[in-house]
């Protein structure tokens, strides 16, 4: 019996010891973690091709949905078990925290080597999404820390057939024209507008497009710094855009709880004439309704003084683990996968915009239209500073309450400003 006890103890120790050990990685193997369900097959095919060409195996691990992926990455960072290549989907402040924790390699020298040979391949905005500029507010050493795999822009999409049915000849470019189009569509029983306002990032994206148009980037940034209150008339105008659209009946029923996937389905099935979506939607529209006739344009401008900016830049970016012993192999793979033939293949297979400018030559016309907006695109990742996420949450939720008619723009503005002041008292910005 004693012997049995001793054996049990030994067996337990062996199991615990083996369980705690990290799996040994093959010499010619690099590991990549991602969240892109729609790109898994294409990435697998490219990984096989890379192994044939170089003898280096790229082990892909997919963690979906993206929310789970974010948690996985944070947990892996805490346990120090990050793979050689991974993506940071979170806000730029979190990206900065990963860099400051020494978990992301600085790729500036690789990008700029041989007369910026690698860097020149990409859309400028795509690289900017992964760049920390001199004097950045996050206190990160200036440099490029990520590699854009593909790019995206978020814009207004319109259904040509439904506009024609309502007698709308031209795509509305101004807010007044858009309201006239809403009226015309409603007259013939067509729902004017659908999007996924159940996801707060879309509310934020839509609102910031109008904020840039109404007051310009400098004033938006001044608001983030606390120099302009949310009760300012320009911000009131931003809130009023939502109130006006809701009152005119522009939105599909249930828009505030609608997820973007459902909104994409509604647009694909011609249940609404306009939508607000990213270029990734092209793949969904193609699979759900191959004959859907649609076009893309920026949101209709409210003021002529400032251009209507769109959110765009890196759709998916990957970083190299600074602690990885395979750093060079990881960089070489990323250089290979962002080269023109691989980028063209990825774009063709997944209907996403390639980050490589040369690869975007042969893309479909609709993706080409999405790509045209890249030059006037902006994104929170390239802004000099971002708003406190707690204020952003109050802002987005406030807009939802305006849409459902629960609160007025003035009430929301006062509430958001109150939270802004509270947060400014708590956090000292550098």
């Amino acid at each position, binding site marked *: 019996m004693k012997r049995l006890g001793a054996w049990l103890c030994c067996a337990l120790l062996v199991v615990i010891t083996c369980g705690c050990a990290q799996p040994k990685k093959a010499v010619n193997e690099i590991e990549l973690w991602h969240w892109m369900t729609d790109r898994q097959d294409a990435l697998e095919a490219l990984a096989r091709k890379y192994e044939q060409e170089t003898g280096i195996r790229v082990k892909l691990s997919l963690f979906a949905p993206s*929310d789970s992926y*974010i948690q996985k990455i944070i947990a892996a960072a805490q346990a120090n078990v990050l793979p050689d290549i991974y993506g940071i989907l979170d806000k730029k402040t979190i990206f900065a925290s990963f860099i400051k*924790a020494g978990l992301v390699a600085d790729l500036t020298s690789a990008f700029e080597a041989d007369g910026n040979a690698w860097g020149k391949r990409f859309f400028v905005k795509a690289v900017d999404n992964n760049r920390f500029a001199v004097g950045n507010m996050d206190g990160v050493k200036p440099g490029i820390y990520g590699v854009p795999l593909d790019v995206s822009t978020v814009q207004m999409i319109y259904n040509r057939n439904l506009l024609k049915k309502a007698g709308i000849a031209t795509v509305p470019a101004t807010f007044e024209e858009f309201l006239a189009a809403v009226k015309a569509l409603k007259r013939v029983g067509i729902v004017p507008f659908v999007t996924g306002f159940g996801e707060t990032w879309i509310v934020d994206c839509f609102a910031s497009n109008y904020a840039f148009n109404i007051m310009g980037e400098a004033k938006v940034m001044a608001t983030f710094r606390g120099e302009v209150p949310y009760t300012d008339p320009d911000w009131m105008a931003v809130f009023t855009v939502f109130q006006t659209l809701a009152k005119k009946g522009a939105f599909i*029923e*249930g828009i505030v*709880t609608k997820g973007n996937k*459902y909104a994409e389905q509604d647009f694909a099935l011609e249940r609404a004439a306009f939508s607000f979506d990213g270029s990734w939607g092209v793949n969904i529209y193609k699979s759900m309704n191959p004959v859907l006739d649609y076009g893309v344009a920026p949101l209709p401008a409210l003021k002529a003084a400032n251009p209507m900016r769109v959110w765009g830049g890196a759709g998916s970016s990957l970083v190299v683990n600074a602690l990885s012993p395979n750093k060079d192999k990881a960089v070489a793979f990323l250089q290979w996968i962002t080269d023109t033939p691989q980028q063209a293949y990825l774009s063709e297979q997944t209907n996403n915009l390639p980050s490589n400018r040369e690869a975007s030559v042969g893309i479909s016309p609709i993706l080409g239209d999405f790509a045209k907006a890249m030059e006037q695109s902006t994104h929170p990742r390239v802004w000099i500073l971002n708003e406190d996420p707690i204020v952003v949450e109050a802002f987005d939720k406030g807009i939802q309450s305006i849409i*459902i008619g629960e609160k007025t723009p003035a009430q929301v503005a006062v509430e958001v400003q109150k939270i802004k002041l509270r947060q400014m008292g708590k956090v000292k910005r550098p």
Partner: protein
Amino acid sequence: MFSKAVPRHNQAISFDAFKNFLFVLPAVGIFSIFYIYPFFDLFNLSLHQWQGIGPKTFVGLQNFQELWGDKVWWSSMGHAGYITLIALTFQNALAFALAVACDREIRMKRFYTLIFFIPPVLSEVIVGILWNWILNAGTQNGQPIGLFNHLLVQVGLPNLVHNWLSDPASALTCIAVVHAWKGFGWGFIMLLAGLQTIDRQLYEVAKVDGAGSWTTFWNVTVPMMVPVIMVVVILTILGSMQVFVLILSLVNQGLVYHTEVPVTRILSSMSVTNQFGYACAQAVVFGIILVVVSFALKSLSNRMKQA
């Protein structure tokens, strides 16, 4: 002889105790690693300000102080309480009624049992997608897309067509009803199992004594079922207070703050506003509330058993 026998006996006891300890060691180890350590780590994190990565700043009880004044948090607790109340009444009453019906000799008893057990085995995401379609408020060519609104039109009640999930007046009730629909099967199975353990002779004696079916139900069935009912009540409370996947799949990130429950607030603090320390404080407070409620119900159950 006697003096020698005692130490031998003691030795045997201590070896037996060691052996027993060896057998429970894996369980103790696993419990310590996966429950006790994380709990203390969670409490430790709740005393810090932390983004989830990078340095932590010790802030003492500041997160708890902030939580005390967080109206959204306490209203989310109220929302979870409302969902729980619907589950305790509507869901469990339905489960009990169906269990009593299936406990009798009726035709196709097994078929009904199987049908009632389908909703609980479905994933909450699937249930959310299904009910999202049923309660869809959209229209196409002037006709409702959602099944429920479509039926209302078909039966001549078009004035009742409603935006079920995007109206603060109905969204939380819809969530509570869907949750109850999904959960009543568990209660049904447990209550049915409980009913089947009641000695049939008790019913025969009641019948001989001239008791009617209603009297038999109140004086035989209900008292005998108290322990099972208490277990179902505790499990319903714990399950309903922690509902969140269903909410995410029905209303995404929520209808303003009207559909927030404690778990969605904790998730929001972690992934939307990156306040991991605050999220941990929320989790600690929520955990304590659930433990207190569970113990209170357990003690009530014991008293009822004694009575």
